[in-house]
């Protein structure tokens, strides 16, 4: 495997390539289920903070808190998803496509 040039340019990717085949080791790498996990986070975030917003609007009679809560929940979910799944190379996934 030629990694000399790549390791100088993109050490994180070179390290990921050398970390072995992710199929034989389980853990925090991207799998077929990751997409659905992300989906679960999106729903859970909206449900959680949308529910909180709904409760606030129910007691204060200001209906705008419900949609605001949903949006805040969505934003939190998206942020968390980017933080958790946005760095696949650090999680042992070799790069795919042209860089392989």
């Amino acid at each position, binding site marked *: 495997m030629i990694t000399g040039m790549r390791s100088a340019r993109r050490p994180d990717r070179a390290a990921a390539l050398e970390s072995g085949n992710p*199929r*034989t*080791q*389980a*853990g*925090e790498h991207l*799998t*077929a*289920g*990751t997409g*659905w*996990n992300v*989906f*679960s*986070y999106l*729903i*859970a*975030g909206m*449900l*959680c*903070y949308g529910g909180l917003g709904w409760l606030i609007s129910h007691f204060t009679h200001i209906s705008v808190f419900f949609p605001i809560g949903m949006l805040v*929940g969505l934003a*939190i*979910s998206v942020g*968390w998803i980017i933080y*958790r799944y946005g760095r696949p190379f650090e999680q042992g996934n070799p790069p795919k496509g042209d860089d392989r």
Partner: protein
Amino acid sequence: MTGSAAAAAGGCHIFSGCGYPAPGLNDFNFTPLFTIGSFGFTKPMLLAVLSALAVIVFFWAAFAKPKLIPGRTQSLGEMGLLAVRDQILRPALGKKGDTYLPFITSLFFYILVCNLMELIPLLQFPVMSRIGFVWPLVFMMYGLYWYLGFKAKGFFGYFRSWIPAAPLPILIILVPVEILKYVIVQPFTLGVRLFANMFAGHLLLSIFMVATWYLASLSVGLLYAAGSLFMVFFVFLLELLVDLLQAFIFTTLISTYIADSLEHQH
């Protein structure tokens, strides 16, 4: 035979004065085939039992007396088993996932056969389009991944593993989302995804089948009927794909959830 299909079979055609007997929720309700006391045994139950028998008989025939040089049935069984192992279990769980191979394989083929029931003439009903058949599978999986989580990490350890490694202010925001994801969203979406796909597929298929019969008459309707018949074939092929895909997604997700229970680091 259910509501709309019966109306269509009763000679209800275009230009004969009766409207299109659109299939709807009534097509998912069946009168019991027979009753035991107050318990009515319906067609979906019969199909669920038939599906289970089909899977049991097939794998029995394939692996009851395994040979070094496999025969036809055994080869087919091995292909199915290996497909589940390499496409569903290994990507999520790695080598240690092989422990769950019998469970996941039976589940995959049971759901697949249940779904395929919608395409077999005369049977023509996907068992999983009645949500009552989906929830037991979901609860079984739910129990399994909690049990495995407790076993692998201890009671409090499992709950602690839900908490991501982050500063306290962020944790206060994130922990409710994590709890909701594990306790409600994951099992709910798992069940509803399978149910809704099968429900919609069956409805789509019956809409075009009833329409073909309804439009068929000695008039320009025959042309429309041909169009509708084409759609029946198209949706049939589409459903073949959806049946396979839903069984695949259901079991893939269970493998992912099991992997999540066994080891979980953020």
